[in-house]
């Protein structure tokens, strides 16, 4: 009893003394971590506690799960101080290790907290090795290709461990790293790095279930100085196109008007001379259209001039007597009805009327009923009067044997005239020279022809009845030609013939003006100067009878194919028949049925 108490007091005193000296039992160690680099071995590290001032030894003990056998750490050295290395033989996967560390010193020992470790979940590989960064130059621009190798210890080849890699890049001055995951591959291309700068590259890896390794040592790479061509090309293109657009805009602006003209052609306005748009806008249509009226259209022709015409009479021997003209007299006489042949140009009836008027003494203008052209009517009326008047005092002229003005109607360019302009010409009646004196020796040579050349041609061209032609062309003004002009010198080559009258049988009776033997009714004159119309046959053939003392030549001259309903008139009993067969041989029948009597001329 006394001994135990003494021992206790002694121990207490020793403790007090040791405490005063600063030594004690070791503190509790602590296991910090256990790691396996390749899932085949692993290492555990602890942290020693206070050593208590005395040298302390540490021991690691472990036991596997579901087993009570305690093993001590096989290797304290390999991994360094305060570590325990488990080699392959001592490492079992998918088994829990219960590890404790015991610290022992002279005064006591201490045991750490146990730690459960499953090696399969404490894998932390080593860092990747041989990190290389290369600048690769390509068309799109240079980039950096970083490549590395797996840590030496990790066995990925057998599939025991699978590593995933990661790299990070930054410039020297940057604070933050830019991380890229490389997966299981051992290279990586880094794009869009700034040119002419130095970059730092680091790589690390991780198993599929484990911890990340440490970063490798920094690898430096310098990017070359290059111009991003793609971008600069686009910049150049943009500037160029902008420039072109500006130029185009300016050009369009300058040529604004012509462009407007091209794109929006102006609506053509009315281009009528004398047309005032303002008047139209104001709404006064009468004034507007009045300006359209052209003064002096259609052109009016002074028919007074037309009517004045000279009738030339030639000597038969010297020259031919050409009586140009349409045989309109007969036809016109024939066609009394105005509606047949007249289109308003001046009918035969007007001429007939003219004859009657002048001869009788100007009858009333019964020509109203006839169809006149507007101008023709007026002109005819004027000519009638003028001619009638003009010829009265014209007797002194006739005394000279001068021809009275024979009104010759030539086709006036009337608006409704269908003839061609060139065909329209004055038709002169040239009566063959007829000696005023009754010199029978000259007579035989006298004849007159009525040339129907023009008429048939024209008729053929236009298809109009000749009587119309004749009507329009030839108007005989048979006015006061009845007053003969006595004293016409027989020596004169020209002599005028007057149409005595138109007898009811539609015969044109011609006789020389100076013929003293002229009778008011000289239809029966057997003078040689005359050429009487013998007859008009049924088919509207005008038979001109050359009234000579010896023979009578009938000229078949077909004036026209007038569609008249005039019945044929027999010859006058005065006019004796001639051998009608004779001239027929010499006649030349034209293609259209007309007879060209001019052919017969030389034969006479």
């Amino acid at each position: 009893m006394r001994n135990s108490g003494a021992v206790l007091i002694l121990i207490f005193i020793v403790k007090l003394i040791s405490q005063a000296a600063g030594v004690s039992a070791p503190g509790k160690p602590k296991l910090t971590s256990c790691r396996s680099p390749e899932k085949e071995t692993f290492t555990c590290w602890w942290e020693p506690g206070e050593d208590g001032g005395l040298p302390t030894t540490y021991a690691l003990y472990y036991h596997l799960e579901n087993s009570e056998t305690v093993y001590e750490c096989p290797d304290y050295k390999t991994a360094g101080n305060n570590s325990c290395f488990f080699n392959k033989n001592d490492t079992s996967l998918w088994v829990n290790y219960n590890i404790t560390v015991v610290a022992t010193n002279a005064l006591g020992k201490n045991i750490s907290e146990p730690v459960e470790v499953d090696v399969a979940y404490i894998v932390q590989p080593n860092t990747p090795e041989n990190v290389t960064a290369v600048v690769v130059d390509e068309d799109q621009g240079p980039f950096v290709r970083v490549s590395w190798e797996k840590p030496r210890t990790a066995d990925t080849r057998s599939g025991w461990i699978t590593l995933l890699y990661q790299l990070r890049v930054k410039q020297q001055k940057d604070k933050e790293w830019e991380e890229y995951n490389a997966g299981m591959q051992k290279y990586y291309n880094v794009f869009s790095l700034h040119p002419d700068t130095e970059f730092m590259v680091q790589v690390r890896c991780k198993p599929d279930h484990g911890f990340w390794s440490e970063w490798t040592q920094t690898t430096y790479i310098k990017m070359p100085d290059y111009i991003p061509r793609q971008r600069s090309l686009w910049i150049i293109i943009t500037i160029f196109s902008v420039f072109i657009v500006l130029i185009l805009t300016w050009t369009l602006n300058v040529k604004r008007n012509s462009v407007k003209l091209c794109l929006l052609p102006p609506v053509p306005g009315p281009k009528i001379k004398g047309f005032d748009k303002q008047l139209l806008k104001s709404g006064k249509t009468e004034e507007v259209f009045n300006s359209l009226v052209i003064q002096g259209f259609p052109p009016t022709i002074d028919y007074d001039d037309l009517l004045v015409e000279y009738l030339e009479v030639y000597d038969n021997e010297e020259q031919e007597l050409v009586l140009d003209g349409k045989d309109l007299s007969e036809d016109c006489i024939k066609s009394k009805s105005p509606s047949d042949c007249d289109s308003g140009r001046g009918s035969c009836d007007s001429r007939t009327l003219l004859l009657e008027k002048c001869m009788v003494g100007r009858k009333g203008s019964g020509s109203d009923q006839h169809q006149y052209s507007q101008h023709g009517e007026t002109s005819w009326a004027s000519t009638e009067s003028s001619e009638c008047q003009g010829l009265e005092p014209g007797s002194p002229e006739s005394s000279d044997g001068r021809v009275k003005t024979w009104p010759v109607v030539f086709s006036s360019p009337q608006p409704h005239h269908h003839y061609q302009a060139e065909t329209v010409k004055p038709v002169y009646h040239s009566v063959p020279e007829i000696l005023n004196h009754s010199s029978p020796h000259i007579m035989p040579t006298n004849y007159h022809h009525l040339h129907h050349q023009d008429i048939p041609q024209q008729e053929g061209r236009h298809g109009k009845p000749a009587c119309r032609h004749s009507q329009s062309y030839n108007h005989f003004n048979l006015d006061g030609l009845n007053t003969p002009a006595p004293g016409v010198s027989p020596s004169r080559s020209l002599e005028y013939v007057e149409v005595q009258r138109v007898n009811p049988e539609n015969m044109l009776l011609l006789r020389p003006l100076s013929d003293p033997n002229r009778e008011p009714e000289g239809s029966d004159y057997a003078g040689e100067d005359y050429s009487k119309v013998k007859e008009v046959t049924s088919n509207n053939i005008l038979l001109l009878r050359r009234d000579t003392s010896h023979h009578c030549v009938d000229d078949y001259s077909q004036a026209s194919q007038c569609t008249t309903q005039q019945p044929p008139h027999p010859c006058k009993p005065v006019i004796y028949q001639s051998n009608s067969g004779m001239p027929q041989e010499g006649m030349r029948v034209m293609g259209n049925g007309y007879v060209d009597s001019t052919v017969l001329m030389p034969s006479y």
Partner: protein
Amino acid sequence: MSRSLKQVAVLLVALLCLDPHSRVSSAPICTHGPSGCHVPSLADLFDRVIQHSARMHSLSNDLHSEFEQYFLPSKNSIGKIYRKCHTSSILTPNGKENAQKLAREELTEVILKLLMAWRDPLFQLHQSMAHQQDFNSFSSNKALEMGDMTHELRKGVEKVAEKMRVLGMLGNSVTGLSPAETMLPISDSGEAMSNYELLYCFRRDSNKVQNYLKILKCRIIPEHDC
């Protein structure tokens, strides 16, 4: 009339043309390898299986972490009772050398055994997790998915084994697992394992399966991946 005749003629022609070839016959799928449809190679099959196992393991890992975070009663290492997983009776290589020492057939068989052993326990796990209101639906769905994936993985591995057998890489020693092999996870104490323990064990076993498959693949088809 002519139109109807034309139609009839067309029909006749069509019938004549089509008739001999229109016999319905069941053509075997992909009998002729390259000419017909695409037949997955062994490498492709392995890749698929390995990916599947990786997914399965990650799921189990997530669930286990969730459990540890929320539902671990106490980090009481002393009080921890480590029950044996029910699959501890299956001899599995616990190291690389040991795994490499195993023959292909044995390795395949181990994989299949493991996968087979977890079919029912996972179903039970899902059931218990669904019943307990502590778990959210997401966790219970994960458990269900895990069960399905295990099932699929087993099928896949069986196909791979079949393929290997066809190719002559495997002997005929691999036999189907008998239903008696399946064991119920009963601890020594006779109590059923808790969910946490189940998850813990399954996490480990899925890791094993993944590892074994990788080894098998790299042993049979050494490629650049290995």
